[in-house]
């Protein structure tokens, strides 16, 4: 059931999402916005896995299973990251990455 959409379109979509995520991760000041960018990256990888699974190996399901695992890991990681952000806020009274540079030099 691949239809008329070529595989490359999915790959371009996921590459675009990946690099938008990276751009957001490297540029945004707010820690929570950085977290959202990370989710974008993870989702782009998910799209990659599912597309390859559907187009190259339609009889197997490993790709789908792996993207389920990635969703679970992303959720856990987001929870941990939120906990860290809350601790940073308690210590520095701010959630801007520029304020968290005590490890410099």
């Amino acid at each position, binding site marked *: 059931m691949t239809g008329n959409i070529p595989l490359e379109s999915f790959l371009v979509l996921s590459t675009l999402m990946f690099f938008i995520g990276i751009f957001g991760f*490297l540029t945004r000041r707010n820690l929570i916005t950085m977290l959202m960018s990370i989710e974008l990256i993870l989702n782009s990888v998910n799209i990659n896995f599912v597309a390859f699974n559907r187009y190259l190996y339609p009889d197997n399901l490993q790709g789908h299973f792996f993207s389920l695992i990635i969703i679970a890991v992303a959720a856990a990681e987001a929870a941990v990251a939120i906990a860290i952000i809350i601790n940073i806020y308690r210590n520095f009274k701010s959630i801007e*990455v*520029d304020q968290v540079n005590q490890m410099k*030099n």
Partner: protein
Amino acid sequence: MNAYSYTVLIPLIPLFVFLLTGLTGHKFKPLVSGLIGTAGLTIVAVLSYMTAISYFWTGHVEGTAYESVKAFEITWLNLTEFLTIKLGILLDPIAVMMLVVVSTVSLMVHIYSIGYMKGERGFHRFFAFLSLFTFSMLGLVLATNIFQMYIFWELVGVSSFLLIGFYYQKPSAVSASKKAFIVTRFADLGFLIGILMLSFMTNTFDFQTLVSSDGPAITHTGGMAFMGLSAITWALIFIFMGGAGKSAMFPLHIWLPDAMEGPTPVSALIHAATMVVAGVYLVARLFPVYALVAPDALTVVAWVGGISSLFAAIIACTQNDIKRVLAYSTMSQIGYMMLSLGVSGYGGHDGLGFMAGNWHLFTHAMFKALLFLGAGAIIHAVHSNDMREMGGLRKHLPITHITFLIGCLTIAGIPPLSGFFSKDEILVAALHHNKILFAIEFLVAGLTAFYMFRLYFNIFWGKETHYHHTPHESPLVMTIPLMILAFGAIFSGFLPFSELVTSDGLPFEAHINYAVAVPSVLIGVAGILVAMVMYRKSTAIPDKIAATMGGFYRGAYNKFYMDELYLFVTKKIIFRYISQPVAWFDRNIVDGTMNLIGNTIVAASNLIKGFQSGKLQQYGYVFITGTVALVIIFIFLWQR
């Protein structure tokens, strides 16, 4: 194992006593350390006498030569085929003689110190160091090879350092001990050079090999001659330099008078009877090599001995500190011993000098230890070292007086005391070899009698000084060693020494040469009479003579300015022109290079530090850029 294996206990017992009293002595009452030390020394003395009786009489066939016996040997460092350092015990006539001397005098000093050092802080430390010294000295005299002798030579120097500086809170004692150690260490530089040269030429350290008549030393040819003397002569002269430093020969004598800062028993043991004769023992040990291969080195030995004895005798006539008079007297008598060895030949009656030198070593140990311990008793009674503050002590210290008088008569060479016999043989040997040296020693004999009796009359006669508290005779524990040593001083002259200790081991007959003996006794008696006239009652004669001799008297009183000369050479010349430039180089150039390298690295790291800004996003950026670059290179650009 051979018949003499028990001699390994002789050096080991004092070592054990040193460790025991040194580590645990402070936990018990002080007297315990003294008793342990004395007990150990008694055993050592008994073993030494057993060894001597067995070696010289019961274990020896009449008329044959005394052979050297290696009682014990272990290999310590086996480095190469030629370089092996062994430790062991070698017994031959001079070694056994020294065993008797060292153990007897050390035992007397131990007993005496129980009384003399009573109440002193550090009593147990004193006995620990005395045992350390005895161990080192015994190891030195029993050494089988020259390297072992060097090891124990240094150990003896360390013990001397520790004992001179015993009163470590007195600055003069500390500087005296430093001076002693540095001067003897400097002399040991020559000793080490000599050892290296000798062992290089003969491929051995072992004494039995070195002195054997078909061994590599005596049959040695070759080696580059330098300034007319063969290489082996130079090696032996360097070795003698080490001996000259330890024996306080001119010009390395400056440490001996200052070493009197130590307690008097130390002066008796180390700086009169045992350590200072180590140089004489060294020359005696290598005597066949000296006599047969390098007679020029023996000339050096003889002249150094002669000059030292005259030099010291002149200075001793002017000193007022009783211990300093005895110290210069020691230097003078050791000069006698060195001269005696220097004028000696080898074999039979030619070896008269060798025999006489060793005999004088034996008798000198007895009477000089006696004199020093007597001086200690006097100091103990009067609480002063200066003879100008003493007088009329013969009424207060009877036993000390008699034994001190016996010691003075012995050193002056009055028959039938022992000093007469040994000194007479030295004069005969000198007469046959070199008339000038004989004349020097003859003069010194007269001077010796003069300054010793100057000392005696000033202390025991003269005007009655008013003492703060009446001096009292020393306790029995201090006077018994005096009496035993006096006994030794009187009777050791009757030992048939020429049948026991000779240059080649074979006994020979030595007779008194009346042509030499009578004048030497007369000049000794003359010295005594002059001293009696000048000092028995306090007169103005000494001051008038001092005034007449003016500059010469002042020079002698100031020890001929040798210390000032040494200070000048070291401070103005060596420090300013050698030490300071070297120190400057070390501080500025060597340290500067290290500092430069360090500073450069710090500057570089400061540059790199800028990369760590602490900003998470910058780290992420660098990471991702790097990854992308690697991907591009490895997937697209790297053409396999």
